[in-house]
């Protein structure tokens, strides 16, 4: 076997592979094109039929039997479910039941492959599943494919299957960050029903470090916004040593803390960690009690830039805070001036001053603010 023969064989191999790939490519494109066109037509047809049925039961066209096995029909149903509400949802649910659509997708999810079909099944069940789907969904919360796990949680949230809350929480610690974040979204969807399970989870799992699950749980509590967890979170703030946990608790307290949270937040506003100070400023503003104004005004002169900025934004949001900001605009501290100026611009005080200027009705404070704004900007 000399070099020439090897060379010729190599050429042949490469060119054959090329021809195979080329034919494969052209075939795939042709198939995809036809599929896409057919899908579009079928789906439009199904949407039209279903729309007529939803708009008026009298005008109901029969639904063809083949629709039951058609993914285009399923997609049409899902789209419509997201557009209409009220009695129409029941009509659609009736159609889903009558044709056994959910059962079919459950079977597909249970199969071991192909991935594409299983994923599509999970997505569909997340949209059209009912109480009887809950079992399958809970089973697959630990599926090996992350997207499927996300869709299962999503589905359980949509059907409000509260028994799943613990199953989902159990996975908080072992899950990868992206999936856990999507699980957290589902928790938010459960609302108040998730509150006490979350609190229990936090109590059990709080550690000196590696608290990603706990942090996520605290964030969820903040979003759900149930005031009753305020004292729990204040307790967490006291007890926890992990700064990530404390930051999360501070943020959540801004929403759920209420007046009782002001004392612990004032304490964290004096923390040596700038992140805690910065977040405390924001949370104090959210609680809305102007008694913290003078404390926040001192924050305008903090060594850390973010703390200054957040303190200014907080003052802009609190009753009476704008006055303190206007004082700061005239202060010697350049950064306090700029931070105050930005907050006043963002909250509309600047726009107000400019309007008054145009009407010729400026007061002393307006003039200070406007002078500050039109001054030379730093390079």
């Amino acid at each position, binding site marked *: 076997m000399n*070099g*020439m023969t090897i*060379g*010729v064989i*190599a*050429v042949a191999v*490469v*060119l054959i*592979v*090329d021809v195979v*790939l*080329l034919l*494969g*490519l*052209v075939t*795939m*494109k*042709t198939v*995809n*094109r036809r599929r*896409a066109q057919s899908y579009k037509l079928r789906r439009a047809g199904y949407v039209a039929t279903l729309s007529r049925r939803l708009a008026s039961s009298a005008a109901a066209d029969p639904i063809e039997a083949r629709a039951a096995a058609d993914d285009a029909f399923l997609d049409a149903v899902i789209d419509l479910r997201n557009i209409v509400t009220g009695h129409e949802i029941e009509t659609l649910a009736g159609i889903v039941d009558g044709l056994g659509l959910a059962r079919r997708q459950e079977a597909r999810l249970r199969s071991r492959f192909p*991935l*594409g079909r299983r*994923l*599509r099944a999970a*997505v569909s069940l997340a949209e059209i599943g009912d109480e009887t789907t809950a079992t399958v969904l809970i089973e697959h919360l630990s599926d090996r494919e992350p*997207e499927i796990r996300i869709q299962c949680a*999503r589905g359980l949230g949509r059907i409000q299957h509260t028994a799943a809350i613990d199953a989902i929480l159990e996975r908080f610690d072992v899950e*990868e*960050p*992206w999936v856990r*974040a*999507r699980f*957290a*979204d589902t928790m*938010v969807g459960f609302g108040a029903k998730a509150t006490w399970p979350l609190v229990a989870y936090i109590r059990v799992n709080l550690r000196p470090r590696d608290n990603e699950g706990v942090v*996520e749980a605290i*964030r969820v509590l903040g*979003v759900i916004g149930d005031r009753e967890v305020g004292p729990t979170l204040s307790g967490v703030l006291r007890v926890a040593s992990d700064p990530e946990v404390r930051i999360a608790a501070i943020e959540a307290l801004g929403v759920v803390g209420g007046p009782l949270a002001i004392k612990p937040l004032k304490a964290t506003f004096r923390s040596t960690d700038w992140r805690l100070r910065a977040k405390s400023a924001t949370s104090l503003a959210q609680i809305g009690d102007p008694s913290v104004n003078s404390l926040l005004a001192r924050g305008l002169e903090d060594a850390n*830039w973010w703390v*200054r*900025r957040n303190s200014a934004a907080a003052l802009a949001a609190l009753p009476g805070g704008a006055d303190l900001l206007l004082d700061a605009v005239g202060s010697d501290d350049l*950064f306090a001036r*700029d*931070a105050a*100026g*930005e907050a006043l*611009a*963002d909250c509309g005080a*600047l*726009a107000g001053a*400019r309007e008054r200027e145009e009407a010729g009705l400026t007061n002393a404070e307006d003039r200070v603010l406007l002078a*500050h*704004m*039109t*001054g030379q*900007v*730093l*390079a």
Partner: protein
Amino acid sequence: MIGEILLWVGYGTLVYFIVMQAYMIGLGLRSAAVMRRVHHLERFGRVSEMLSSQTSPPVSIVIPAYNEAAGIVDSVRSMSIVGYPRFEIVITNDGSSDGTLEALVEAFHLERVRIPYRPDIPTAPIRGIYRGHGAVDITVIDKENGGRADALNAGINAARYPYALCTDADVILDSNCLVGAMRRIVEDRERTIAVGGNIRPLNGSKVQLGHLVEAGVPRKLVPRMQVLEYLRTFLASRPAWSQMEALPLVSGAFGVWKRSAVIAVGGFTSGHLGEDMDLTMRLHRHHIDNQIPYRIVYEPSAVIWTEVPETLRVLRRQRVRWHRGLMTAVRDFMPMTFNPKYGKVGMVTWAAMFLFEFLAPIIEFIGWITIPLAFFLGALNTTSLVVLLAIAFGAGLLNSLVALLLDESYGYFNSRVDTARLVVMALIENFGLRQVTVAWRIRAIIGGKRTRVWGNMERKGVANLGVEAS
């Protein structure tokens, strides 16, 4: 005797090319494994739920703008409805002379403000800052001209959020691009410092009001060649590099950067012709030298569309610029090349960048000279030559076909016309067009006064691209 030497040198260059194509095929296969997931997500994943999530990290979209008055308003408007829960837009007016600033101020009702602007990265002087509060918070930094890198640095300085998406004013963002990119960050928030996106040529597509209506393959050969090029890079190379965590380049047209990391290395290098590659490699070097855990990845589903040069003239300027940027980077990062300290970046991807991107035109040029010379001196066996050329051509075609097959995950370009255009291009691209780009790059290496540095790309204003006359 001379003929023999020339012959072997000539063979050497052909073997070099076959090795290069083999490397790319290897990357392509590795990328295919990565793209399999993208394929499923593109078709079935519903990303819209993330849009109401309160827990996603906020992002500042940073846009440098120099004389973009034609399309900047439509562009910003379409960016402002990208799918993402929390973000702001920061535009740097880099000393435009065509009324870019005025157009922005008027369209978005911006007011001039003073805000604490911290020059973490030094830039050209700032003239003013403007803010607006419509559906999306918009900040415009007006500054003296300093170039794209400088404008990006100013935008990063002013950005409020921990992550900055650096992009261009004439880019069309796919509505899921930011979710896709941020997913890579949320996956590993501690370590992820940059995410690169998937850039697709807009030419030949139907655009209306700053939105992509239908993707299409351009009729003209120059942009069509680039469609294949971009597919080979973004579908068949970068996913593999990213999986090795050795991505040497996060493109300037779409990169999500961790602000603190960028500031720590001093931001984009002003005046550098390849500022995106330079920053990416500096980040690698900084983190490896200081033993800071990190990763820089690429997200194939973060798709954006941008106009590419339509004529050889504009394309030449772009390629000369790129190659000179590459030259500077090769010089700057020579100590990293083939240096095991720098892991896969030094030993594989940057080494390949040096060997196959930078050296390629030189070696190909040597081939052009030595092979014909060897032939005329009678030293060349025609059959051997044909065999080697056929393998090189076949392997090159293979790479393009792999890229086109990977592109099937997205479902664009399925019409008969598009398919035919792509196939034809894959077959003919090695007969002429590529050789021209090699000539330009040789020219770039030699340097010379005629090679202008920053040409004006004639912009149509992306928002108003009609259907290309077919």
